[in-house]
């Protein structure tokens, strides 16, 4: 019995290793496709304005990231971002910045995320409150500040995002994040206040 179980254990370990190899293989097999699309984009680059190039790159980076190439996506989008972002409309600029910021945060580069978003606060504030991109920006801004332990700015950003949020579930989520930030930073009174309000409204 013990021998049989040992053998089964070895087989499972082998299957697991095979699965890991498969994931890597899939990623490797997608490389020629990624390279081809990147070549096409680079060929088109002279005919595109930096803004248009950035928009194309944004789509491409989203696909690359989904295929597991998180760091490649961040590098490609980051290099196109500086030259092209100024040409975008405010909405596009916020959207692509938030996309870049999410890639940076996934890679633990929260300082980079905060720096990218900081410049765009006036731009985001200029959008109407009903524009979903505005909320999306404030959410990303609040989360990045919280991850960077910029306590005062983060709590202010969370409160602004909560103000802008019209969806109850989303608002509750943001309030929970804010309560957690207060708690973990040792501001128990504020954490209790916001969590008590939430309990009462449930």
């Amino acid at each position, binding site marked *: 019995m013990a021998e049989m179980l040992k053998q089964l254990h070895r087989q499972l370990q082998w299957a697991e290793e095979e699965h890991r190899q498969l994931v890597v293989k899939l990623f490797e097999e997608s490389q020629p496709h990624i390279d081809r699309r990147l070549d096409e984009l680079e060929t088109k680059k002279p005919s595109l304005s930096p803004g248009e190039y950035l928009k194309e790159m944004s789509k491409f980076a989203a696909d690359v990231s989904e295929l597991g190439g998180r760091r490649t996506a961040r590098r490609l989008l980051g290099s196109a971002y500086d030259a092209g972002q100024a040409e975008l409309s405010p909405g596009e600029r916020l959207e692509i910045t938030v996309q870049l910021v999410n890639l940076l945060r996934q890679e633990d580069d929260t300082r980079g995320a905060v720096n990218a978003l900081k410049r765009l606060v006036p731009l985001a504030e200029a959008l109407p409150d009903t524009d979903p991109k505005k909320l999306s920006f404030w959410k990303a801004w609040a989360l990045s500040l919280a*991850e960077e332990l910029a306590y005062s700015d983060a709590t202010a950003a969370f409160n602004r995002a909560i103000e802008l949020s019209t969806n109850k579930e989303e608002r509750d989520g943001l309030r929970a994040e804010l309560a957690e930030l*207060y708690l973990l930073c*040792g501001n128990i009174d504020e*954490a209790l206040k*916001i969590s008590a309000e939430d309990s009462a409204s449930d």
Partner: protein
Amino acid sequence: MVNCRCLGMLGNIDSAVAKIDEVLASGGEMSALDQVALLSLKAELLYLEYREDESLDVFEKAIEPKLERVKQQEKFVTSQNKHYVSRAALRFDDHQSDVSNDQFELVGTKLWDAPAMVHAYESAFAGRHYEALPALWRELVNSYRQGTWSYYRQASKRLTREFLQIGWAHAADVHAINSQSTEFVNIIGSTLLAWRKPELTAVVIQRIIHQANLKRHSTIGCKLLTQIADAIPDDQMEVVLKWLLKSATSQPQSQSGKSLIGASWETIRSLTPRLTGEQAKELVQAAVNRESWAKTKADYLRPFLVQVVNECVSLIPIGDLAGLAQGAIHMASGMSQDLNYDKDVLDFFHHLYQRGDTTTKKLIRDALYDTPSVNLDFVRFAKDFGNDIESKEEVNKLSERFAQDVRLQVQHLSPDQDPIKPQVSLGMATAQSGDKKTAVSLYSDMGLKAVIAYRALLPLDTLESVLAAVLDMLREPENMLANKVLMINAITGLSDSLSKEQAEIVFEVLEPIARGEIAGLDVSAAFGDPNHPLNPFKIKFGEAATIQGGALYALASIESCIPGVYGDRLSKLVEEGMTNSNPEVRELAFVAAQQMPVLNESAVMRTLSATRDYVSGVVQEALLTLNTHFCDTTAFWYSIAYSLKMAVQSPETNVRRVAAFTIINLTPKCTSEVVTEQLAEMEQLLAADSSFTVRKEISLKPVADT
């Protein structure tokens, strides 16, 4: 979840637990994961209240039946947390957590980000704290969300360390308390004391008493308050005491729960110099009401209670002392027969004896000396309790016995001889080489101290034989340094009983030691160098510097009893000691200088320079020396004014306290108008110091000249 945790932290544990039960009972559409999370919080809050059995009950009866419906990770987290509680409850039979750990290893998920932590530490080492802090913070958030209590504690520890590195001691208390670790208490406390910013200290104190109410958190809070007791602003004293008394008067619900009660009384003890009479009375009442007080044998708490009550003896009305003594007299039972008697209890009785009326004195004396004492300390202290029990003959016999006993520290034997154990020995080592065997005991000077206490009754020849034994053991190259320190102390103790001839013999032995020529048993051969960072054995059997400085002090004590017996010979030695490269020798050289009847000009100049030494202990002793050995010259007054100006700005409380003492003493003696004005300004500055003891010192009257 946050709400219930906050309620617990603010001291409403019952409301927090009731709320969790209420939410769970209300049913609704709560997922199994949410139910497990809420129940885990309940178990954690109970654990943090030292209610381990109830916490384990939650795991076994409520959480585990639901585990089938959650993922492997949650199962693992739960088993880790349960294991944590089991260990705290001293149950070591929880093998399930090892099985769960193996399962989790097989799944391969990592619960903490080791590469990110390494990167954070490297960043911190390189001074890039802007990179290190956010990474450590994110790890704290992750560990909180993931719910493994031990990881959260570790993450809190890392964040505390980082906060301290970047100079945020005033905000590090939160994470230090969450880490439940005493590791950071000293550094947070010493940093707050050194900053001398009452507004920041007040915030930390307020935060502790407001939100460190879960008992495991309170324990760390108490330890932190102990460290900063001297800097607690006056207007917070009342609330701090109230907060402490709540824990100090509570009953432990488990074995581990005793640590908070002990910590509370320890903190209260640190506050006793600041108590009012009313507060002292209240504390004495609280202490004597504890079950531990009535026990004959000391338990975990009684030493703290005795220390607190002892400190309160001088603050409560004399009329209350008889009752207090009656209620404590059971502690005296069997003390005189016990070598390991509780010294704090004896000190307490001594204090009561000094302040109490005749009946109280008799009560204490009769209880302590109810049977002939075998304990030599009781022989030594008999006089202090009005019980001069030893006759001259008995003292003589005792002294002759110890003149022999002292020599048993080092025994040179033949290989077949067995060493004789000294009367009180803390351990013995033997070494054999060829046909020689040497036995060295780690000696206790209990008996020698008793002999010294009765030195005035000793006949000359007995005194000589005791002194000869002490000097021989000091010369003995095979004796260990720790024993030699005791021998030097014995010479100091005998300093007022020596003749000029004996003083000369002592000088011959101590002079080379005072110059740094010290021979002693090299224990590093057996245990390695205790100062080496890679040696795990840190036991030290005495330091050469203590003996060198001690020799100076012993000689100076003799000089103060027989002025001029050593004269310039000793002055030169003390002056050399003042500039020794070892700070302990320098410090002791100034302690010796304070004993000298006269200090020459060159020694005073060295002392003035030492008031700016980089070691605070040396600065303190140098300043104290100048209180009695000052020169009334303009240059002296200007120079000491400069030193005192530096000292009053020192981050070290002890240096400022000595500066306060010196300013109060020297101001009436100062003949320079300019310096007198400067001293008055410094006095004003110290009157508003953040330290209670400094403020108290500056408010005292100058010490009368002797």
